[in-house]
């Protein structure tokens, strides 16, 4: 009787899981299928759900410049490169300056330490729209518009407070005894941080790097306002342009979508463990 009930509840849970999985995967499937369909099959009524003539032509059009396609499609691979440069640099700067600051906040006895901590937490919440007008004015004055550097700097506004917060959470969990031993042996603070704390907190560093990269990769608003040429335009802006300026170039948009989603999705899946632990550390103090 009891076993029968357990089977029933397992069945019920599987029944609940099915619609959740369907809701997750149906749009993903449609994104990928759209990217390997010909326009004719996609625009059929109703659409061919499974393409009869699957093709990689859309990918070729977008990745190999020179073919007769729209300007956004032709320059898409450049925007991919821009996104990598911007997100990579942002992540690097955040890790270096964030490690120093996060360590100081986690370990050193400082006046105003609590106030600083709260300030950083608060800054993390400030929306981009609150900063965009002055940043635009300053960037225009300094002739920084349409350069990757303007995005790298402005992305620090949300990425750096986040990185500091996360790193300091991880540093706090490093056993103090390890550091004390190094310090007593005459190692400087900086040396201790690099030789003792960072290696022990390596999983936390990976986690922080992942989240920072994903945040920067995902960013759209600053990129939309500060860049309009392919010198610095990032992938999200290119994808938005498929829908905007041109009559919807649907296959290119979906193909671009797959390409834009691949780096973050693959990173997140490969480093899944770090994502799950990072979500709890970054959001909930562990």
């Amino acid at each position, binding site marked *: 009787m009891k076993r029968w009930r357990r089977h029933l509840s397992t069945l019920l849970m599987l029944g609940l899981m099915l619609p959740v999985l369907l809701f997750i995967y149906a749009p993903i499937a*449609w994104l990928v299928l759209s990217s390997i369909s010909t326009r004719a099959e996609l*625009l059929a009524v109703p659409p061919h759900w499974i393409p009869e003539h699957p093709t990689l032509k859309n990918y070729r059009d977008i990745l190999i410049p020179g073919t007769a396609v729209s300007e956004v499609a032709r320059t898409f691979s450049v925007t991919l490169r821009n996104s990598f440069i911007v997100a990579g640099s942002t992540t690097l700067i955040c890790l270096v300056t964030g490690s120093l600051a996060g360590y100081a906040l986690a370990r*050193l006895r400082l006046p105003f330490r609590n106030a600083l901590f709260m300030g950083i937490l608060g800054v993390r919440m400030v929306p981009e729209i609150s900063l965009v007008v002055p940043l635009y*004015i300053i960037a225009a004055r300094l002739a920084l518009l349409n350069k990757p550097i303007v995005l790298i700097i402005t992305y620090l506004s949300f990425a750096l407070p986040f990185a500091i917060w996360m790193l300091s959470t991880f540093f706090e969990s490093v056993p103090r005894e390890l550091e004390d031993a190094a310090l007593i042996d005459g190692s400087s603070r900086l040396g201790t941080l690099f030789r003792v704390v960072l290696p022990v907190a390596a999983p936390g560093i990976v986690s922080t790097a992942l989240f920072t990269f994903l945040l920067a990769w995902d960013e759209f608003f600053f990129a939309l306002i500060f860049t309009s040429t392919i010198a610095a335009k990032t992938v999200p802006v290119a994808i938005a342009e498929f829908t905007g300026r041109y009559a919807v170039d649907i296959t290119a948009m979906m193909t671009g979508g797959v390409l834009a989603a691949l780096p973050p999705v693959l990173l997140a899946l490969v480093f899944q463990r770090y994502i799950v632990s990072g979500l709890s550390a970054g959001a909930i*103090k562990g």
Partner: protein
Amino acid sequence: MAQATVRPPKTVSLLQFEIREGVLFLLPAVVLIFGITLFPILFTFVLSFTDTPLSNPSPQNFVGVSNYLVFLRSAQFWQAIWRTLYFTVVSVGAELLLGLGIALLIHARPPGWAFLRTSLIIPWAVPTIVNGALWRWIYNADYGALNGLLYSLGLIERYRPWLTEPMRALNLVIVADIWHSVPFIALILQAALATLPLELDEAAAVDGANAWQRFWFIRLPLLRPAILVALVIRTVEAFRVFDIIYVITQGGPAFGTVTISYLTYLESFSYGRLGSGAALSFLITLFTLFMALAYVRLLYRPEVQG
């Protein structure tokens, strides 16, 4: 060095040394954060009292509080506020319920739970703009998958435009947001569930409490801090929603999905009125600071020094 000859009381010098090091360690980050957030916020505040145009972006004539007054008297502003609140309450509410449900489902460890947890990561990691573009394509009036699906199932007789009616467009944008954000809440809550002490739950079970009672009286109260944190983060995010609206509806139909962030964007960069755009963004900042305060109080409990 003085240190070698006259040795000052050790604790004091160590503390001073630590402070000096701390300042050096913090300096790069604090300078950056001040330069790119606090200074711009103050700048925004100043700009909001001027009529600076986009075409000549240096602070112009002082116009007092008139930028604020114009908005407080305009129907467009209040409609945008209302829409933003509707978007925030409905999307975050739905996301919380679904996310909690999914987290509990994962926690019950049915066969395939690990696959479900991994699957959640995908929509979470898909960039917001791709998410928007995808749903825009699904909702397409002439060729969209929503039309195709309903038509194939025989639920509609001909294709329909889905985004031509303001309220429906807003709700469909909410669906896209839910797809993207439920995983975030579900993943946070399932991680929190995994850390809960099981003794209470087991004790209650022994005492004859049923599953519902154990959930309502034991797990839910223990989950409260995690739920609150997820709630505050999502509320702040939803309140500033811009990206998916930009891609799916461009604020349309007939300004029907213009939220407060979108209105600020239009004001500043489409109509080129940086001054009144600054006034709007300052109002958003105030709201966010209020929420941030709640967030800080939830998250940060000062520890005893030492």
